[in-house]
């Protein structure tokens, strides 16, 4: 459905669209703790990045939070106290990410406690990548279809990270099986940004992550808001997070598979 919205918006823009950079008076939120943590089925260590949100005009990308106590506990009872690396980055020491594993995160900053819990789904095998071509406005467009067989049980969610010649596609590609439960996926990764067109001879890297329902909701909200503002997208707000205690961000446990393909 998102695609329809995009195409409709695109039509309107084709008419006489005109983009210009402007300046606006923007309010400032109080710096808020941001937790960005992932556990994968690859070999550790895994990392949790703690930072503070900044004003829109602040050029510093990551304002690290360095005085935190970060602990991850898994379903076997292993309690891993993360080691501080630098600029808000913390590293696990002994925990091991496994399919079906459950992980609890506890972060304490200035006596304030934040918690999150997540489970790693079973891996769905990424069989291959294939190229999808279609004519669009007088030229051939390319997109990539990740080929995998969705399991028969309903409720699988996926996230794809796409890099085109090592440039990260900023689109949030998330799929679920609401409509194609138990089927081989034939849905392509949307072309994304118009400035990031896929051309012949491009190398496309795709990382497939089997994610939890909470992660799906988080990234799907971001995707819906990416066309935000009147004319497209939904009214933006902070995406629904699995972190309790008032922090922004997400704590995700997911499987990772990577493949590349060259467009020819």
């Amino acid at each position, binding site marked *: *459905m998102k695609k329809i919205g995009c195409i409709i918006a695109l039509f309107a823009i084709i008419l006489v*669209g005109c*983009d210009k950079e402007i300046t606006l008076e923007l309010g400032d939120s109080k710096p808020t703790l941001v937790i960005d943590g992932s556990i994968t089925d690859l070999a550790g260590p895994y990392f949790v990045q703690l930072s503070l*949100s900044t004003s829109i005009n602040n050029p*510093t990308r990551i304002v690290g939070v360095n005085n935190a106590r970060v602990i991850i506990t898994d379903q076997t009872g292993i309690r891993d106290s993360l080691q501080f690396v630098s600029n808000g980055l913390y590293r696990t020491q002994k925990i091991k990410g496994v399919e079906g594993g459950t992980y609890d995160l506890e972060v304490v900053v200035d006596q304030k406690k934040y918690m999150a819990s997540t489970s790693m789904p079973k891996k769905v095998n990424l069989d291959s990548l294939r190229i999808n071509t279609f*004519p*669009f406005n007088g030229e051939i467009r390319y997109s990539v279809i990740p080929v995998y067989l969705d399991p028969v049980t309903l409720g699988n969610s996926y996230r794809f990270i796409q890099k085109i010649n090592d440039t990260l596609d*900023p689109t949030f590609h998330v799929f679920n099986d609401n409509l194609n439960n138990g089927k081989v996926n034939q849905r392509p990764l949307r072309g994304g940004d118009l400035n990031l067109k896929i051309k012949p001879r491009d190398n496309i890297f795709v990382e497939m992550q089997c994610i939890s329902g909470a992660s799906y909701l988080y990234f799907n909200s971001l995707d819906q808001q990416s066309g935000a503002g*009147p004319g497209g997208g939904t009214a*933006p707000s902070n995406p629904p997070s699995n972190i309790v205690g008032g922090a922004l961000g997400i704590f995700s446990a997911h499987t990772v598979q990577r493949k590349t393909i060259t467009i020819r």
Partner: protein
Amino acid sequence: MCYKIYFFSFFLCLGAHFTPAAAQQSFVVSGSVKDKQTGESLIKAVVRIQELPNAGIISNEYGFYSLSLPKGNYSVVVSQVGYETLVQKIKLDSSQTIHFFLQTKNVLKEVVVESSRKNDNLTKAQMGTETINMAAISKVPVIFGEKDLLKTIQLLPGVKSAGEGNSGFFVRGGGADQNLILLDEAPVYNATHLLGFFSTFNSDAIKDATIIKGNSASQYGGRLSSVLDVKMKEGNNQDYTVNGGIGLISSKVSIEGPLQKNKSSFILSGRRTYADMFLKATEKFKDNILYFYDLNAKANYQINAKNKVYISGYFGRDELGLGQEFGIDWGNKTGTIRWNKIISNKLFLNTSLIYSDYNYNVKLKNGETNFNINSNIKDVNLKQDYTFYANGTNTLRFGFNTILHTITPSTFSGTVINSVSKEGRNGLENAFYLTNNYRATNQLTIDYGMRVSMYTLMGGDVYNIYENGTVVSSIKLNKSSFGKTYINPEPRITTNYRINDETSIKAGYARNVQHLHLLSNSVASSPSDQWIGNSYNIKPEIADQISVGYVTKVFKSNFELTTEAYYKYLQNQIDYKDGAEINTVSDVESVLLYGIGRAYGLEFLLKKKEGRLTGWIGYTLSKTERKIEGINGNNWYNARQDRTHDISVVGIYDLNDRWSISGVFVYNTGDAVTYPTGKYTIQGQTLYQYAARNANRMPAYHRLDFSATYEKNKTKRMHGSWNFSLYNVYGRENAFRISFKDDPNDPTRTQIIRTALFKWVPSVTYQFKF
């Protein structure tokens, strides 16, 4: 139980007015008011008696009137905008039928918006009501040169545009789905074409349009915020005429004429855009499709003096496609059969049988795979509406309305997915109403009435019942069985007190209830938005509106100033959770949120209706808020369409017999939107932090349009006119969208990008008639 008592006591109080009137012997004069040249019946013509200033009536939707008068000799005065006032002497010593034929005015003194014919606005109780004169719309500049009813009503106070060039509108803080849009009594579910840039109404086929901003009489119901009642022309029953217009992106033609002279007529009107022809001419866009067409047809037949039948239909479709890959088409079909019966000279009955169908299809194709989405809503609607001209002071209107809704939500099919057949849901909507127009004294008029609306859930799909977001039970109804019934009384009253010939005050209260709701996952309207009826979770939306008004003549009676203030309280408003996929989720009710709303404002309308210069200035000061459980920390927030100031200035100046010029200026506070208040990084990507919802503003919107109309010498048969218009004269780049993104050259910096749609849009239209 409560509403029964309510209704009963209402009848009691109604009976009170009827006792004193019967004392004197009286006779009835009745008949219809028609256009002398074309035989079109004239709606809302005023029939007055010179000798009895208190006696008078307004012709109904079919031109019928009836007046009870004591025996005597009278001068009957019949007036209507754009027509010469007719004075006819009658001798009333028995009840009689008289038809009045009015002559069109020669002088060009057309007024686009006309709510008062002479002092009519001062005497009618109706509040928040404006009637659009279709004949004069052609002179108001509009985008693409296509004269458009919906864009003209957006220039009235209290009515706001849904966006740049858009036909969607918001009335007094209501949503775009809270307007009841009727075309010959048939509800039109999606009143826009081509992504909102055109309305579904072909202005050549329209006789009359009235917008009522929330204080509608009780024969109307089903939407919270307004009624837009559009009546199609009946067709000339005297002679054949052809009307047409040729524009840069669309053309239209209509033919009308008698089926039997003086007795029956027809009108056939069609329109098609050809924007895609331009696309075809370009190598890049040649595979794209972008057009719409619509067809209006209507015929009427006078069976005998007491019976008349009307058949009308509308068929419109939009097609939009990108090569072989993507296609979306949507459209409305409506059909209406109406039967007017004059039961007696005091009792008029109209029976309508209406069918309407709105659907959309989306086709996506990716190489070898197909994917389709379909949705539709079908209505079968039966109405009976009686008007009883009880005596000189009371006119009663009563009737019922039964609608069977069949709503099929988005269903998906295709090679790549499991075709989940979501069953449609049926709903039965019933309403009974009674309203009385009571002319208490020469100065005081009271319209009061009650509508009782009922909505019964019917079988089809499973109904889940949710508590705090989880299913607690499920109800499966068989196809033809009934579930829960919602019953809502809707009391309404408006009063008008005429202080003197130039000044009157008005006050009113109305409750409106809405049983069908539009779910939209985009800020702007999209053809794929879906309708849903009440359920066990979704309760009828309710709006209570109180309003007061003051109407007076100013500047030596050359101008009319209307001021109204309103306060509206909305209940059971619907929104949905963040990240919800309202189209693919298995039960959309699992992601809905509910809340309340409030809207209040002050509207001013200063009109000049006569002379070479006509037009109006409208100003609205208003506030619109929502409070939805689960959004914005359960606090009040601005609705997107909350625009504090809204100004429209419309001027039409007749230079001479051939040339007239006109201009429109609009200014409004930008929409309430949410800008980020901070940023952060997650997995290498910049995300934005948000605080309160809709606490920010888009830049203010303003625009000036200009047009000039040249009318060629009128020969006997042929009449032609040219219209040249320029939309957005000073090329203001109004923000359509504001987006935030990383600067591609410096990712640590955030760019704020404003997208504007139209800078200048010139257009030329040739309009002809023969």
